[in-house]
């Protein structure tokens, strides 16, 4: 059999979960991470990062809207997916997806964005014409009440929504880690640490993504970057990254020390088929280099231009590293045989439904949606400065 080394059970030779299943946790990870950054403002009162508050929420929404697409493209019968809503199997973590997704989309993200933007929406509904005006009027739900009391109520309710949103974001992304971590059949995936590692790397990727998008949009709009803001974001990114790296190393050290029956085959796989994606991309380029760069910024006083370059480079390397981590988990888990006697190869197709081209399209699509959302609900006021949340303006 081509691409097979050693012995694989005959049905294991072709992989069932493709690059799209790698993309899905990467995308929901960005959602969770961006939301956590936004919650820093609302719940933890980190005022410094307020300029990115609205942008983080819109980023989360853009990626969340795209998240079901890789799953639908992967399913053999996507039109049957409503069955997960009508007859969810309570023992299956995957059955939770539909409900957690809907909850997070409507009761957390859309609700919070709506509450924060409501005064803007009402103003825009009164001043805009055409189909856009009609859209704004629909979004007001027929209410134009902008009295101080109603705005105060919005602020309080929004606070509760964000508070509920934090564990919701954890569940939205953590359950994906649980889908892998709960399978006793696959020793590469089976670990109670899996949901936790997924979550922390999600936070790292999401925060870095908002950092990159904020800096990118500011450059495009030729507005100045709020340095205290990005410096604070980079600080949080650094500390969460340390936590994430520690957890991943804990998993690794534990495996090496315990050396159970699966260790030899997994170790061989990491040193051969996963060498580039795990050692080079995920650990060295995707984790150690950005941690090192961000650490320098924390300990040394560097000029603004140098810090900006470091943030951009680190942000990009982080994306590569976190994507590589998802790749190593999903693809790596299918490259070795459950007989522990062999390995297969993943032949990525290019232009099929689950191919590389589709993966690239699905990665770019959220940015296109974000562009549309930014046009519809500008995260900055007319002076061109990033809007701070209505609540802090009212304080």
């Amino acid at each position, binding site marked *: 059999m081509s691409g097979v080394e050693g012995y694989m059970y005959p049905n294991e030779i072709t992989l069932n979960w493709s690059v799209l299943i790698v993309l899905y946790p990467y995308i929901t990870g960005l959602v969770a991470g961006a939301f956590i950054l936004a919650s820093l403002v609302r719940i933890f009162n980190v005022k410094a990062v307020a300029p990115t508050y609205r942008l983080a929420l819109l980023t989360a929404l853009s990626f969340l809207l795209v998240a079901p697409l890789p799953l639908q493209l992967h399913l053999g019968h996507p039109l049957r997916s409503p069955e997960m*809503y*009508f*007859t969810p*199997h309570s023992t299956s973590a995957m059955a939770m997806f539909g409900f957690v997704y809907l909850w997070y989309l409507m*009761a957390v993200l859309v609700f919070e964005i709506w509450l924060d933007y409501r005064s803007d929406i009402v103003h825009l509904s009164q001043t805009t014409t055409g189909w856009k005006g009609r859209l704004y009027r629909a979004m007001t*739900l027929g209410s134009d*009440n902008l009295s101080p009391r109603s705005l105060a109520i*919005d602020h309080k*309710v929004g606070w509760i929504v964000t508070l509920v949103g934090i564990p919701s974001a954890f569940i939205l992304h953590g359950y994906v880690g649980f889908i892998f971590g709960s399978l006793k059949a696959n020793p590469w995936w089976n670990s109670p640490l899996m949901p936790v590692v997924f979550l922390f790397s999600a936070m790292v990727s999401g925060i870095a993504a908002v950092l990159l998008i904020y800096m990118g949009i500011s450059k495009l709009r030729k507005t100045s970057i709020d340095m205290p803001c990005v410096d604070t974001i980079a600080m949080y990114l650094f500390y969460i990254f340390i936590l994430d790296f520690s957890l991943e190393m804990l998993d690794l050290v534990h495996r090496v020390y315990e050396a159970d029956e699966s260790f030899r085959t997994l170790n061989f796989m990491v040193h051969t088929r996963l060498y580039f994606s795990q050692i080079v991309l995920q650990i060295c380029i995707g984790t150690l280099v950005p941690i090192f760069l961000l650490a320098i910024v924390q300990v040394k006083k560097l000029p603004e231009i140098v810090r900006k370059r470091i943030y951009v480079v680190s942000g990009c390397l982080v994306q590569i590293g976190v994507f590589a981590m998802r790749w190593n988990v999903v693809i790596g888990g299918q490259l070795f045989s459950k007989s522990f006697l062999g390995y297969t190869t993943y032949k990525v197709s290019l232009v099929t439904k689950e191919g590389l081209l589709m993966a690239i399209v699905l990665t770019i699509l959220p940015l296109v949606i974000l562009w549309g959302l930014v046009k519809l609900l500008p995260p900055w006021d007319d002076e061109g400065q990033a809007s701070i949340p209505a609540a802090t303006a009212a304080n």
Partner: protein
Amino acid sequence: MSLSKDAGHLFRFAYLFVIAFAVFLVIRHFVVPKTFGQYGHYRGAAIAEIAARPMHFAGHQKCELCHSDIAEAKKAGKHENVSCEACHGPLANHADDPSIQPTKIDTTVLCIRCHADSAAKPGVFPQIDPVQHSGGVPCETCHQPHNGL
């Protein structure tokens, strides 16, 4: 009263959820298959559907209804416990309509599959080296396939 005035928009948002949930329940009532949950968390009718799939092997009992003479001959020899279709292949179509003739077996190929010599096979199983033993002559030249003599 002023609460509902100042929080009215929130109630409207909540109503959206209530309406959506109600619509969901109605759709669910019509879409979930009737036999779902009959025996467990699955569509009960699936069991009968799977049980009704067509067969390609008739089963030796069916062969013996017509070919009782061969069945008797088999009982006398070493192939007593080898079922008819193990060698003749799936023949449910022939059992249903005897005018359909089964394909003639090529003994030079068939018998070798089981009886070719290999150190991997259990030692007690009768094995021969096809070249040394018969030199390519069809097995049925000297052996009776049904009673294995």
